[in-house]
């Protein structure tokens, strides 16, 4: 009499546990065991789902850029707004005003910064399926001294949890990187030298092991740049599709702006040194060696190695045969803005300018603020 319910209970408990663990392990499976596609290209397909971070304390840095960008997006786009709480989301909605795109909140309940790009890379879903995989770096730089950056480390998980395992899963790489260290198209992914510096003799033995690990995780041919200007790839290069690579050129920037910059533009001072020019040129040569048609675009980098007046920090959208580039522009640098716009137009892109004057002095522009979760087509 007593044994039957106990035996039944054990059997039922084991069955329930099996179901729970199967569900949980599906969410936690390592990337190698999962069917993830390659890292999302920067220039191919129509924008479908974007992710931005919003923190009210950083409103002065980002609101202008977000308002300009969100109001220009088409109705087909959904923007997930990662924010500490519902009040922050409401504040952004109010600031943005009426927009065609859909805004959805991803409340986190922990500190965070307002920079979405570096937090994760989006790996395409397996052919024709779901979910998207958010590949986070092994650790966040400076998280040990920076509570908001420590919180940033959790946002990929917040997004996956909010969207659900059928739409997005998050997994952690064994490698150290920032999302901004990569620029990809359908042929390959370019990787900055800082990824080599952070990983070789820390997570991998040597360069070849690093390239193998990156190719395994990103699912594309990896071009690890030997030389490049300091900081993230989107500051000095961008894939424009059809085998075209735009690469920054400080000499063009100086030609347009002149040696003395307008007041308030590029606070640390412009770096027009031959050494920096050589680093930009090295990137252009490497792209050409990889078979790309290289187009140079005026750029001004700061002497601090972090501040850039760049027109490569863009979000690209190819939709129904129409190619649109959301391009940062900067007040006080109108002649440079105009010249850059012409370069993109000549490359076949319709330009939607987004004012990033308030953000670039904090070391980031549009692409640094916006991450692309998925594209269609």
């Amino acid at each position, binding site marked *: *009499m007593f044994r*039957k*319910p*106990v035996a*039944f*209970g*054990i059997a*039922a*408990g*084991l069955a*329930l*546990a099996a179901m729970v*663990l199967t569900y*949980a*392990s599906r*969410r*936690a499976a*390592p990337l190698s065991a999962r069917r993830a596609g390659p890292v999302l290209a920067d220039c191919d397909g129509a924008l479908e789902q974007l992710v931005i971070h919003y*923190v009210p*304390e950083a409103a002065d840095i980002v609101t202008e850029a977000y308002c300009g960008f969100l109001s220009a997006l088409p109705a087909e786009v959904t923007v997930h707004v990662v924010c500490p709480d519902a009040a922050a989301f409401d504040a952004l909605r109010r600031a943005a005003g009426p927009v065609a795109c859909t805004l959805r909140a991803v409340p986190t*309940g*922990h*500190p965070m*910064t307002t920079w979405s790009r570096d937090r994760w890379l989006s790996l395409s879903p397996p052919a024709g399926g779901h979910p998207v995989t958010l590949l*986070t770096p092994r*650790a966040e730089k*400076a*998280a*040990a*001294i*920076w*509570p*908001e950056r*420590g*919180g940033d*480390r*959790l946002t*990929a*998980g917040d997004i*996956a*949890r909010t969207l659900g*395992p059928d739409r*997005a*899963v*998050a*997994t*952690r790489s*064994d490698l*150290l990187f920032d999302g901004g260290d990569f620029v990809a198209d359908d042929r390959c992914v370019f990787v900055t030298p800082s990824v080599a510096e952070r990983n070789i*003799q*820390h*997570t*991998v033995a040597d360069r070849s092991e690093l390239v193998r690990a990156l190719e395994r995780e990103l699912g594309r041919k990896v071009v690890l740049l030997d030389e490049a200007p300091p*900081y993230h790839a989107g500051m000095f290069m961008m894939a424009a599709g059809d085998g075209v690579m735009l690469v920054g050129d400080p000499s063009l920037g100086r030609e347009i702006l002149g040696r003395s910059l307008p007041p308030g533009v590029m606070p640390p001072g412009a770096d027009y040194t031959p050494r920096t020019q050589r680093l930009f040129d090295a990137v252009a040569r490497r792209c050409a060696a990889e078979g790309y048609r290289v187009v140079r675009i005026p750029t001004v980098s700061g002497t*601090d190695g*972090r501040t850039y007046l760049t027109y490569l920090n863009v979000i690209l959208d190819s939709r129904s045969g129409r190619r649109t580039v959301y391009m940062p522009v900067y007040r006080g640098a109108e002649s440079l803005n105009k010249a850059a716009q012409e370069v993109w137009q000549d490359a076949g892109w319709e330009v939607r300018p987004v004012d990033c004057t308030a953000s670039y002095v*904090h*070391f*980031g522009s549009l692409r*640094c603020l916006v991450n692309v979760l998925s594209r269609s087509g």
Partner: protein
Amino acid sequence: MNAKIRSCLTAALVALGTMAIVVVANWPNVLDAKAPAPAKTPARVIKAPTMTVHGCRLTLLPPDKPAKGDQEYVFAVEAVNTTDKPVHFDMTVAVRSTSLRSRFSRMPAMPREIWRQDCPVSLVAGETRVITVATGKKASALGAMPSPHVTVDGKHLHGSPLGIFQPLRRLRTPNGNVPIKAIKQVAALQAVRTRTGG
């Protein structure tokens, strides 16, 4: 009726208990449940970066324990002459550090070299020597995340911060929006980084 209810309750309790034990014992690290969790296979950690120059293997040794801010910043390089001849070379040892523009900037500033010293090295055949580099500066005077660097003939060995993190006071200012659990998570991250040196 009582017997039936008792049986059902017993079965339900046993089922729940069994499930709880099995699930807790086998629960995988679910990254998307809260935070990026460690992979089941521990990720590779190279605690002591190494390079070979002039037939000598140079290793940046991990510290025995993290230094405190008021202690002198010291690191050590192990040099092993793997050849059967004496070796002489010039080594440059340096410390780089960074700073934060604001809590909401995208990145800390570019790391800058804040201390350097040339250090000639002579080793007899097969000799192993641990070279202790004393900077003469307190860790607290070396910026936010000081890290050691070794250069020989243009080859570099980049060290991780030696578990010495200088929290910037303004970053620690209590923030009404920061829940305690989040601060604890950051503290946990600190502990991990300190232990791995990564």
